[in-house]
């Protein structure tokens, strides 16, 4: 019978196998291969570890790494703010639904759009500085985008502004799924908001908080290209102040046409992200149990 043909399941999964081998399988194999080759155009001679030596000996690479590490500082701030806002929304004060809609808005806007808008807001002669000097906070009037000392912090503020929204919604949906009886009992006992949050709610949110920390770490490591591409004018500027690993790979591949060097950095980035990915899967498994 046609229905029970042993080959039928393979016909169903064949397109998947084909697509994934093309985009991921073949690519990951060739990525490792290229990282040991001096690629000119589409191929080149084997050169052992020379690409890696070149990259590891280059100050710009280490600067990019340092910048990615600096971005990790955003994560704890994001967790605290998102947690506080989610707990406040959970109180269901009058108008909380409107606040929820507005607080998620940053995550709805695409990164390139919001980066262009913020870049204009934070120009030296822009509205942010205009407001700061109107409030007599002149010591805070900085060249947010144009100064090499400040630009990466501005990028961090932008990342904080957008990615916190995801934390709020994740945390709030976890809170909504909690068993209300315990919380209600505490409320009737007259437990203060602070105490309810600290002793009853937050302990039950450990899983979702860890989860948010890990996905944020993956973001800081390998998904900030669009932010720095716009704020840094496509080159990680001013100077190299907003250079990150993704942009380093992009530059090596597109601007200086050194696919071998770009491949070596990609391999190292992939190995580091494997650690985070393992953590993510361990958390997911625990949540499902």
């Amino acid at each position, binding site marked *: 019978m046609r229905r029970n043909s042993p080959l039928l399941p393979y016909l*169903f999964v064949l397109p998947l196998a084909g697509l994934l081998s093309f985009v991921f399988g073949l690519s*990951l194999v060739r990525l490792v291969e290229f990282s040991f080759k001096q690629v000119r155009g589409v191929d080149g001679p084997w050169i052992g570890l020379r690409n890696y030596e070149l990259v590891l000996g280059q100050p710009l690479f280490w600067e990019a790494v340092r910048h990615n590490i600096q971005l990790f500082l955003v994560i704890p701030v994001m967790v605290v703010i998102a947690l506080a806002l989610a707990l406040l929304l959970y109180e269901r004060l009058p108008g909380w639904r409107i606040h929820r809609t507005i607080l998620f808005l940053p995550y709805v806007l695409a990164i390139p759009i919001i980066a*262009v808008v913020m870049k204009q807001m934070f120009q030296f002669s822009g509205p942010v500085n205009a407001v700061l000097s109107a409030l007599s906070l002149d010591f805070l009037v900085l060249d947010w985008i144009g100064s090499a000392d400040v630009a990466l912090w501005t990028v961090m503020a932008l990342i904080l502004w957008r990615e916190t929204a995801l934390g709020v919604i994740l945390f709030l949906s976890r809170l909504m799924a909690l068993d209300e009886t315990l919380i209600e009992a505490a409320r009737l006992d007259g437990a203060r908001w602070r105490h309810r949050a600290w002793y009853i709610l937050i302990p039950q949110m450990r899983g979702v908080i860890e989860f948010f920390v890990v996905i944020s770490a993956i973001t800081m490591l390998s998904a900030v290209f669009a932010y720095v591409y716009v704020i840094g004018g496509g080159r990680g500027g001013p100077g190299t102040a907003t250079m990150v690993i993704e942009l380093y790979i992009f530059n090596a591949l597109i601007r200086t046409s050194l696919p071998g060097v770009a491949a070596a950095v990609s391999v190292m980035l992939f190995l580091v992200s494997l650690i985070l990915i393992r953590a993510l899967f361990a958390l997911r498994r625990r949540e499902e149990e």
Partner: protein
Amino acid sequence: MMRPLPHLVLMIASAIALVPTLFMLVTALKSQKEYQADKTGLPDAPVLDHFRQILFDTPVFLWMANSLILVAGSVVLSLAVSCLAAYAIARMEFRGRDALFTLSTALMAVPPVVLIVPLFVLYAQIGLISTYSGVILIYAGLVTPFSVYLLVTFFRTLPQDLFDAAVMDGASHLQILIRVVLPLSLAPLLTLVIVNALFVWNDLLMAVIFLQDDAKKTVMAGIAVFQGRYNNQIPLTMAGMAVAAAPMLILYLVFQRHFVRGLMAGAVK
């Protein structure tokens, strides 16, 4: 019980969340002269001229059309591939099934940036740079692991009786998938359409690398260039951003619940 402090905190947070969007819209309605004089206030006499300029004198519609082609192509391709495979993985017995599912799920976590080097070299070799089909293939591949994961999980929750009854009626597996399973799976399918469409529409990395031809630029790549070109005409730039943001803002306000669920599903993949 009056509690001013929580209200105040929420007000401030909402204001911070809202200010960039308001700045974008308000500035877009100001004349160049007015913006230079006053960067923060409301426009005295709103001008629509910048919107007219954006819509008629820039290729913004072309960029949107390009983005739409990529979204439609990759969403349809990845859904077709994922539905077939997820059905087989969830509902059929075959050797290598669990290995395939584990591998496919693991690929969810590969950062897209590590694929650009080999794909760029390959595409340069076989002439797929600046082609829709080449980029659709990449986007479809990137979003498929999560789609398979979500659909397998969902298909496994469907009751066995349903399948037994369909088999009794003499339906083939393909017929069961199309006539029985898919109509019951509209919620996860909608989530996937939103997640995947947003990923493709919002992506900048693949768009700037693989679509270098001006005629093939996407919205996101277009506006990244745009702001450089009109650097000093900030109201005009903001009108461009407002137009580019409009489709998503409107969808968000209309389909808020699905949209939020879709975005969350996409973020935790």
